[in-house]
Structure formats: C-alpha cells, structure tokens
C-alpha cells in the first residue's frame, strides 16, 4: 500500500506532461492567428514587425478597406458575392441531394442501378480533369463571370447523396407506411418525414458545402474575370499579388475580414462541422 501515493503522484505528473505538450501545440496553432490580428490593427508601416500587441493600434486598415472605392478593392461586393454563392450552392445541394437520396433509398425505379453507378463515377473524377472543359462549357453558354458560373458546378455533389442515403436507409418503414395510409404522396413523405428526420445530416451537409464553396479558390479564379464578380478568396489573391503586395497592414486586414463569416460559422456550427468530418473516417 505504501506505493499507492507514489503511483498517484506519477500518474498526475504524466497527465501534467500530456497537458503541457497539448497546450504548447495549441499555442503554436493560435499564435499565427493572434499575430494576424495584431498586424491587421497596426499602422501599415509597422504591420510586419508590430507583433502580437501593436504599439499604436489603429482601425485605419479596416476603414480604408470598408470605404472600398478609396482602396480600389470592393470588399463588400466580394463578401456579398461569397455569401450569396455559398448560400445558394448549399441550399441547392441540400435539396437536390436529399431528393436523390430519398429516391435511391426508398423507391424502386427503372435505372436505379445506373444512377448508383453515376454517383459512384462522379466520386472518382479528379476536379482538375473537369476544370478546363467546365470553363469552356460555361464560355460556350456565355455564362462565365456570372453567379451562374460560380454556383452551378457545385450542385453535382455526390458526397451528399451518399451521406443522406446512409441516413435515410435507417428511417423506420412504419413512419412511411402510416403517412401512405393517410394518402400522402411521395413528395409529401419526403418533405414531412424524411427532411425533418434527416435534418441533422442535411444541416451537416449544408455547413460542409458552405465552407467548401466559400473557401474554394481554383474555380472562382478561372470562372470570373471582372473585379466585381470576384469572390472574397480570389479577391485576396488579386490584392496580394497586385497593388498591395507591400502594404501588409491592408493585406492582413483583408485576410481577417474575409475570415469573419467562417469564424462565425465555426462558433455556431462547430459541433455539426466536427460531427460531419468525424463521419468521413468512420463509415464503411
């Protein structure tokens, strides 16, 4: 029994070591972001060396940004574009994928296997292979540099079909039968039973799609050309490469500004995001 306190002490020490290690790592993750905040609130000349706590904190970078026209950088328009495009794409994906998942999980129609094969096929297509033809397709349709070009390609989202298919398969048949006896049609069953029951999975799909589209870079870079049709992610690239490559205060402020919607989404939907990503490793 005399070893008991010693063992407890050793265990506590190990736990402390683990906590310290994890905390140091966490500090390394957060430090660059704190530095970014500090730089964004520093006067332009001191942004680079300002460090975590700017000596002369200022809102000047943000006021220059917010006034758009003065800096030649239409940030509000870019932000609006990004939010509009991401919202539209995620709503479309939620509707299209939950309809398809319901159709595949609960109805037997001719060509069901073929549709399955199509979904499978679109999972293995690398996006780089479709990028150039997609660009030329939208060029032929005269849709480049429009919201259509920024939104539509994301609607072919096979991941969501599978995610919701998995979910809908597990919905008890009895629920559906009761509704059928009441004379409900298929569309009504989808809307009144499967959409509410699947709401957590559909919401997860929505937030993941929003994040992907908001943060996407390659497609909006090639699909838009005019300053006013850029999304905020492409806007940063345009800004950082051209005019403001040396104005670090403005560049860091723009970076902070661009991240605000995703930080808000993270705060409110973190649980959904984490749940959705956790699922990717555990299925199968």
């Amino acid at each position, binding site marked *: 029994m005399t070893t008991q306190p010693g063992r407890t002490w050793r265990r506590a020490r190990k*736990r402390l070591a*683990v906590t310290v290690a*994890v905390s140091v*790592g*966490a500090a*390394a*993750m957060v430090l*660059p972001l704190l*530095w970014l905040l500090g730089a964004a609130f520093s006067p332009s000349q001191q942004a*680079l060396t300002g460090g975590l706590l700017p000596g002369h904190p200022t809102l000047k970078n943000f006021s220059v940004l917010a006034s758009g026209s003065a800096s030649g950088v239409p940030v509000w328009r870019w932000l609006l574009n990004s939010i509009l495009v991401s919202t539209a794409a995620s709503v479309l994906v939620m509707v*299209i994928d939950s*309809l398809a998942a319901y*159709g595949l*999980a609960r109805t037997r*129609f*001719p060509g069901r296997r073929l*549709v399955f094969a*199509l979904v*499978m*096929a*679109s999972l293995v297509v*690398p*996006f*780089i*292979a*479709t*990028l*150039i*033809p*997609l660009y030329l397709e939208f060029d032929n349709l005269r849709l480049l540099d429009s919201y259509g070009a920024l939104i*539509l390609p994301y609607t*072919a989202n*096979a991941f969501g079909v*599978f995610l919701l*298919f*998995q979910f809908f*398969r597990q919905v008890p*048949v009895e629920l559906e039968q009761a509704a059928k006896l009441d004379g409900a049609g298929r569309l009504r069953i989808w809307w009144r039973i499967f959409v509410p029951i699947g709401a957590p999975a559909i919401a997860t799909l929505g937030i993941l799609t929003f994040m*992907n589209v908001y*943060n*996407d*870079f*390659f497609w909006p870079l090639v699909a838009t050309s005019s300053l006013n049709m850029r999304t905020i*992610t492409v806007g*940063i*690239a345009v800004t*950082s490469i051209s005019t403001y490559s040396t104005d670090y205060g403005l560049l*860091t402020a723009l*970076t902070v500004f*661009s*991240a605000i919607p*995703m930080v808000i989404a993270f705060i409110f939907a*973190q649980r959904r995001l*984490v749940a959705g*990503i*956790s*699922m990717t*490793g*555990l299925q*199968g």
Partner: protein
Amino acid sequence: MSRLALAAGRVAAQRAAAAARPVGGRARPARGRGVRPGRRPGRRREWGGLLFVLPYVAAFAAFAGFPIGYGFYISLHHWNGIVGDQGFVGLSQYTQLFRANTLPAHDFWAAMRNTLIFVAISVPALWAIPAVLAYLIYLAPAPGFFRSVYFFPTVFSATAVGSLWTVLFATQGGAVNGFFHVNVAWLTSQPWAWIALDAATVWWTLGFNLVIMYAGLTQLPGATFEAAAIDGAGKIRAFFKIALPQLRSVSLVVIVIATIASFNLFAQPYLMTGGGPGSSTTTLTMDIYNQAFSLLHMGSGTAMAFIMGAILALVVSVEYVFGARRWRQ
C-alpha cells in the same frame, strides 16, 4: 487544397457505397412484401422515384459527365482559349508528354517531380502529427476544447492561409525570422521554400485529420486503455500497440485524403512563392493552369490534366491495396 473536404467526402462515400449497396438491395424486397402483400416486390416500377433523382442526374450530366467527355474531345484537338478548335491532332498531346525532348513534357515532369516532393513531406506529416496529437488530446483533460483549437485553422480559406504565411515568412522583418532570430529567405530559396509551404499546409489542415483520428480513438471501448495500463504498458507503448493498430482503417482514409489534396496543391505556391525560386515550386496544377489559362493551350492542358488524374488514381489505388492488405493480417 480547398477541395479537401470534398476529397474527404469522396473517400468516405466510396467506402460507404461499397458497404451499403448489397445491404440496400437485400433490404428492399422485405419491405415491399410488408406494404403490398401478394405482389412480387421489385416488379412494381415506380417511375416516381426517377423524378426524385432527376435533379441530381441533370446536375451530374451537366457539370461532371459532360465535361469529362467534352474534355477528352478537346484533348484531341489544338484548342486555343480564344479562337477555339484549331484542328484534330489525335492523341499527340498525350504522347508528346512521353517524349523527352518537347517543352511541355519537360515542364510537366518537372512539375510532377515538384509535386511529389511536396507529397512526400506533407502526407507523412499529415498522418503522423495528427495521430500523435489525437492520442495526446484523448489523454488530456478538456479534449473537446483542444480539438476545437487545433481544428480552427481549417475553416480558413487557402488564400487567407497563403497570404498570412506569406507575411509571416517575409525575409525582411518577418515574424518567423524574428521568432527564431534567424535571417532565412524562406520563400525565395530552396529547400526553405518547400519547408515553408509544407509548414503552412500542415498548420492549416492537420486539424481536419485530427478530428477524424480522434473520432477513431473514441470508437475504442474506454476499457481498452485501462486494461493496458493495468498490464503495466506505458502510455507510449499503448499508442503503438493499441491506438495505431486500431486506427488502421481511419489512417487509410486520412492518407488517401492527404494524398489527393497534396497532389492538387495550387493556392499556397500560387500565393506564397509564385512557383519559384525559378520554377522549383511550380506544381502540376500550376503547370496545367499556365498551359491552359496563360498560354491558352486548352487541348494540351486538358490532356495533361487527364494524365495527372490517371496517375493520382493509380497512387490512391496502390494506397488502398496496401492499406487493405495490411488490414486483413
């Protein structure tokens, strides 16, 4: 890299599909019998079901199926970005990539080499670092809090990450040089440029893999590690003997996701190094982008993209075969 989560989805869904299909097929008739006694299930054709999948099929056809077919057609032609079709050339834009003395071949394989250098560093790092951290977080107090902290950078866009680290890695007065009291030309000399690109990428995306691996650890019965502790196995031994073997299937997913994302590396070098110094950080996607959107050679750019897609598919299937074989043992 911004398609990271999409890539994750692809992997997960492939696995889900493999598991779900036969089960779904078998479950149907039983249900049918319950609803309509006496009628052979499956014989009844529900054309209505087709209406439900129609929007998806249309989206797939327009934005995935058609571009693949159209892309192949384009790759068989000299196709100028502005003028359009300039004549059929057969497979020559593919075969030129395998003849050593052509300029596109030289650039393509140089870009391939650059991409593989990045992949060789980032994929092991994006597996090992999250694996260790997930285990430490699992043992630490407040795992939910730490998981959120490590995950946080993942929600930023590739361009936000690129511009942040461009500033941090600045040679003159940059924060990284200041922090370590050195004077390294991080983004304009090798091998530092690769180290900087890998560091920024690992910092950005490790939280994504950590979340997946942490979820894998929590699937284990809690008693597993307690039993190991009673057996006198230390925490480090338990990591190698229990945690890692149990994370095998999750590790495969993480490695495949990291491989796909790393092969598609674009935004970080585009913003941080501009493909330099020289063209030493010009990756495959950058080379294809230049070919198609700077030189306006759409046909040969598409051919290069198809070859790249085939090579990526090959690498990923090798990973699957190895992963699945080791799994069975």
